């Protein structure tokens, strides 16, 4: 450990720490654009200037390693003046189209201008014109004029994905980010470039113009897209969920996530959900003593616990079937984040099953079910897109004559005259409490966010209903629970501003 002093704050940092990291660790403000903790040092924005004792020249903190006893500060007027001018140099050719720009509200330039801005612009000449609204591929749009050439995106494709699609072409103030014309930015991690872009130069086609970011709240959660279990932030408001961004997690995904995972918000939105229960009273009737249960690894450990406990205590003859997505691609891994196992909690399911001494039979369709007379519980996966046989199995299930209970997040279309089928809406990962175990057994906690479908319950909550005596009343109550009104509230005026 090295001792150093940052703006008068004494702290100890491990060897090899960059000065800028020490600044951030000491909770000192320091302007920066090009430096990103997950990428190599470029040192081109020249904003993280600081004074180091014993060095007459200002140094950039991102390319300086902390030395024993180093005393650094960025409080002097000289540094502040330099940073103000550094900001100005960034802005002289930057178009002021914040109103149109999707990044407005979370833009590095806006934020840092508040702190380090010059406020009296002295540039009175025509700005350099560059290309606008350039499609870099199916997911990302580029606006060269807004780009400050921090090179984060280029370094990302060079260092993280190693796909090398992006480059900075030309030189001087004509430099532009771009792809080579017949090789667009198409990789499975492309939208990360949008996240790391400190300005609005790169925007995501999916999220573009859907919402202004200040209308959104974020909720930290775990991506249920595959067994990697990246930590993510889900952005939502009363109208629903709008996007997912990665959250730093040193043990799992560091700063990144895959583009597939960015789609995990869609099935949470109420228009795609089973929003009411069908024939819930079936659950109350005395049922058969035999039960077949089909499940996937998309529920939390807590849900499996309570489910298995119930099965054990119910004195029924129970058979549990475990439905895997794509069994042949199940163990794939792309050496970065994406795994073939598209369930967030495979490890959790297997461990809980062992703990409760439950045998998991592989599920491969309803072929052996014809002679079976007892009850069937079918817990559908919430992320149905990764189950290629989903539609086929659901269709088959709906034709069964057994007393069938479907626990579903996605909409299930059912003939209402069929009294043997009951459908119970489930909560998604975004709405429930509990935890997942990822592929190597790391525990990741879910936090319940705002409920999107009011009658939805988590599996463990349904199980506790089933166990209780007044199941019917409870369901009635539940169906009367009104969906929360969702008029778009103006967050800014409500909180009294605070950009």
């Amino acid at each position, binding site marked *: 450990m090295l001792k150093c002093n940052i703006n008068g704050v004494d702290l100890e940092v491990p060897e090899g720490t960059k000065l800028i990291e020490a600044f951030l660790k000491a909770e000192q403000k320091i302007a920066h654009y090009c430096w990103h903790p997950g990428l190599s040092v470029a040192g081109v924005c020249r904003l993280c200037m600081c004074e180091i004792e014993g060095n007459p020249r200002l140094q950039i903190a991102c390319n300086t390693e902390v030395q024993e006893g180093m005393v650094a500060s960025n409080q002097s007027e000289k540094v502040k003046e330099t940073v103000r001018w550094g900001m100005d140099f960034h802005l002289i050719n930057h178009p002021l*189209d*914040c*109103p*149109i720009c999707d990044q*407005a509200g979370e833009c590095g330039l806006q934020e840092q201008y508040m702190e380090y801005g010059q406020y009296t612009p002295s540039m009175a000449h025509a700005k350099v014109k560059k290309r*606008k*609204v350039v499609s870099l591929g199916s997911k990302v749009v580029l606006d060269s004029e807004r780009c400050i050439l921090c090179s984060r995106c280029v370094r990302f494709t060079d260092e993280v994905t190693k796909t090398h699609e992006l480059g900075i072409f030309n030189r001087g103030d004509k430099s532009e980010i771009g792809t080579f014309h017949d090789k667009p930015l198409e990789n499975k991690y492309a939208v990360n470039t949008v996240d790391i872009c400190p300005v609005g130069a790169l925007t995501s086609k999916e999220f*573009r*113009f859907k919402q*202004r970011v*200040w*209308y959104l709240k974020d909720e930290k959660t775990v991506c249920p897209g595959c067994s990697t279990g990246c930590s993510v932030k889900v952005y939502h408001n009363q109208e629903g969920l709008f996007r997912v961004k990665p959250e730093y997690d040193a043990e799992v995904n560091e700063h990144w996530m895959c583009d597939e995972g960015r789609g995990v918000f869609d099935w949470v939105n109420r228009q795609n959900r089973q929003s009411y229960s069908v024939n819930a009273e079936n659950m109350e009737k005395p049922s058969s003593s035999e039960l077949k249960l089909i499940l996937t690894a998309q529920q939390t450990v807590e849900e499996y616990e309570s489910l298995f406990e119930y099965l054990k205590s119910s004195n029924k003859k129970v058979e549990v079937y475990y439905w895997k997505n794509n069994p042949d691609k199940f163990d794939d891994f792309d050496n970065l984040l994406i795994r073939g196992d598209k369930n967030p909690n495979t490890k959790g399911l297997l461990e809980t099953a062992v703990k409760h001494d439950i045998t998991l039979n592989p599920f491969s369709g309803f072929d052996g079910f014809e002679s079976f007379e007892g009850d069937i519980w079918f817990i559908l996966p919430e992320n149905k897109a990764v189950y290629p046989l989903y539609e086929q199995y659901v269709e088959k299930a709906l034709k069964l004559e057994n007393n069938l209970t479907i626990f579903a997040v996605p909409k299930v279309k059912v003939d209402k005259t069929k009294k043997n089928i009951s459908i119970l809406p489930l909560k998604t990962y975004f709405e429930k409490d509990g935890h997942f175990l990822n592929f190597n057994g790391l525990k990741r906690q879910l936090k319940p966010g705002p409920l999107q479908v009011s009658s939805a319950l988590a599996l463990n909550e349904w199980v506790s209903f089933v166990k209780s005596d007044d199941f019917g009343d409870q369901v009635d109550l539940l169906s009367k629970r009104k969906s929360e009104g969702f*008029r*778009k*509230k*103006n967050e*800014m*005026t409500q909180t009294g501003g605070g950009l």
Partner: protein
Amino acid sequence: MSVEVKRKDQNQSWLLPSVLSGMSLTFGKMWGNLFNRKKMPTLNYPEEKYEYGPRFKGNHVLTVKKDGSLRCTACMLCATNCPADCITIIASEHDNEEVEKFPIHYEIDILRCVFCGFCEEACPVDAIRMGPEWQSPALNGGSFVYDIRHLAFRSELRGGIESRLDDAERHKAGI
């Protein structure tokens, strides 16, 4: 604290003179208005309508460019700034990359509006203005929600408001 009580003097106890002076004023005006209609301060609403000054802040108008397209860029600053939360905008991608973003849906719930004018002030491109129109009658609730058709293309409006603004002309005029 003491209060001084004023005693009534003799003249004030006589009511008739005051009544008569009031009547003379009333009838004086009545005759004056009857025979000199031009000076009459009231209007025969709704046949006659009063035209307010150019600074009057009535119903909203969305300004348009010379080519007839909306000036609005759907930045949502008006909606953000609106204390009554009466503006709803849905943005979309424009084919022209110079425009980039435009509203495909712009609604003002005029019954919620408090006519504070914050939307006008928030607008960075002078796309919304408070106009000379001040009556907002309608037959059903839905008609109080004004959409683009109602808000824009109002070249017939008078009262000092321009609803058609061209950037080139404005630059020339030094705006």
